[in-house]
């Protein structure tokens, strides 16, 4: 109980920070891949380079930040104290970073051994995280929609990682599995069961906190994660029984649930009490609008599968949901979490005797706004490149590199200022 009330139990800054700092580099790498391979990347979602780029974005960026952030927030929002957070980070982070590089290389070069070792390393990292995090989290009673949501998200992560390892082995060893159906399910488990449920659980806390909006209504808050997991179970069952119609029913349900959540969040943000439109708010607006379009596409495809056979449909959907939806939510949150943690740790270092610089001195809003414009440009170019790949694929790759590089630069600049201030505080305290 006391743990929940105390930031003393928050892990050292280094534990989450290593995930945050390296994550943009994988998006940068995806941009580089696009710059090198150009229009070829947009020919089909099944191409080696496209699979590599997708995993660099989802595992290299999204999973990376999400696990780092969970190490930080599990004690604070759920009262779930991880045993030895720094050691957990020291094991999970290299597994994740090395694993996604091997996996991407395995896809790209068509090397079964790289695929297998990448999947194995990723599986190990996720498993270690789930065991340590799960032991802390499942010991806490589900007294809020957030805690329940986090638990269900852990379940989602277990299934997406498990199925991912199976798929990688199947590709490497040529097992006779229905790969397209299982790949769709893998994506659904990852994006809805893990990322979507986690996002909602966290949004219940941070949307009111960052923007002073009214809180999420309790009943839908409890129901949403359960509904998502239920629909994913239905989808899995439908794949198992080879019932394509049922798969579409589950997908339509997921699209509707996602639309309800995004619509509600948009409405809450419309009633926020803060006047300033800072980078986090803008990023969330972008993420919500892009997600709503993406989910409308998912709903359309479920109702009229012929439309989804249009060339470029799956890629457009994927870019809209991942680069336009999820990543902006995550970057927007990073822009609050990193400077706040820097302030908090400096504040603690100063022991109440020396002041800590405020958040905008660690990371100025202007730098964030500029990077956000670069990101918006990258999303627009990526989407347009699906339609005009010959002209726009390489510019889109360049824009993605620029926007990801800008994020890395901003986070590193914040880290540098944090260290400078820390050194000054130590000097003054010693004097």
């Amino acid at each position, binding site marked *: *109980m*006391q743990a*929940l*009330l*105390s930031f*003393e139990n928050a892990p050292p800054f280094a534990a989450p920070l290593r995930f945050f700092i390296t994550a943009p580099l994988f998006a940068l790498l995806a941009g580089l891949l696009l710059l090198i391979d150009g229009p070829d990347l947009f020919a089909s979602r099944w191409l080696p380079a496209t699979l590599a780029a997708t995993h660099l974005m989802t595992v290299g960026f999204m999973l990376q930040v999400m696990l780092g952030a969970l190490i930080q927030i599990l004690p*604070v929002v759920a009262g779930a104290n991880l045993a030895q957070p720094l050691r957990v980070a020291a094991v999970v982070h290299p597994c994740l970073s090395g694993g996604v590089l091997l996996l991407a290389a395995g896809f790209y070069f068509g090397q079964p051994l790289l695929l297998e070792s990448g999947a194995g390393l990723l599986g190990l990292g996720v498993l270690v995280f789930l065991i340590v995090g799960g032991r802390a989290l499942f010991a806490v009673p589900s*007294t*809020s929609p957030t805690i329940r949501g986090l638990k269900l998200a852990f379940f989602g992560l277990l299934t997406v990682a498990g199925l991912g390892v199976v798929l990688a082995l199947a590709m490497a060893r040529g097992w006779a599995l229905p790969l397209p159906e299982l790949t769709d399910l893998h994506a659904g488990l990852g994006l809805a069961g893990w990322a979507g449920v986690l996002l909602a659980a966290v949004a219940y*806390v941070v949307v*009111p*906190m*960052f923007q*002073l909006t009214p809180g999420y209504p309790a009943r839908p808050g409890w129901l949403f994660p359960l509904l998502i997991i239920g629909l994913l179970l239905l989808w899995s069952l439908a794949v198992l029984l080879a019932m394509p119609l049922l798969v579409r029913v589950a997908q339509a349900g997921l699209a509707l649930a996602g639309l309800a959540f995004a619509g509600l969040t948009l409405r809450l943000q419309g009633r926020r*009490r*803060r*006047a*300033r439109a*800072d980078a986090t708010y803008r990023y969330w607006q972008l993420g919500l609008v892009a997600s709503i379009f993406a989910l409308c596409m998912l709903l359309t495809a479920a109702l009229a599968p012929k439309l989804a056979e249009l060339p470029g449909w799956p890629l457009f959907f994927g870019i809209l949901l991942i680069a336009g939806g999820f990543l902006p939510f995550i970057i927007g949150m990073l822009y*609050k979490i990193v400077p*706040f943690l820097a*302030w908090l740790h400096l*504040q603690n270092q100063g022991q*109440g005797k020396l*002041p800590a610089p*405020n*958040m*905008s*001195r660690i990371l100025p*809003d202007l730098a964030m706004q500029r990077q956000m414009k670069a990101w918006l440009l990258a999303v627009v170019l990526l989407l347009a490149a699906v339609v005009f790949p010959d002209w726009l694929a390489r510019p889109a790759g360049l824009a993605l590199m620029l926007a990801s590089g800008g994020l890395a630069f901003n986070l590193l600049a914040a880290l540098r200022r944090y260290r400078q201030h820390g050194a000054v505080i130590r000097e003054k305290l010693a004097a």
Partner: protein
Amino acid sequence: MTTIRSLMTDDHRHCDDLFAVAEEAMAENKISTAAAAFACFRQAMLAHFAAEEKTLFPTFEAKTGMSMGPTQVMRLEHTQMRTLLDDAAAALAAGNADDYLGVAETLVIMMQQHNMKEENILYPMCDQHLPGELPAVLERLNSDLALV
């Protein structure tokens, strides 16, 4: 029925509203309006802290014997927020909008996560442990909050 949780949570929202008014004025570059609004906000926050530190926490500690527990953590965070309130007031007095907004940002997150802990954990604990004292405590909290 009024509980400690509902009374104090309402007061948190009241403080949030005052904060938002000040921030909005600042964003529109109306420095003097912002300064006046911020003064109201600061006063409300300090009254809230005082009500907790003088009335609620001692009563809770006396009843449960937990004096180094959650209330101690809350006091520590009050100290941190008082510093931020002072910093924000200094930035306003100096007419430094950037500094003010930066401190305000820090203060908001600090304040919201602090409120979240109180509303979800500490106040429910108070309601649970102080049923007999409830009418008297509520009356004193009400007057503490209204005094300033």
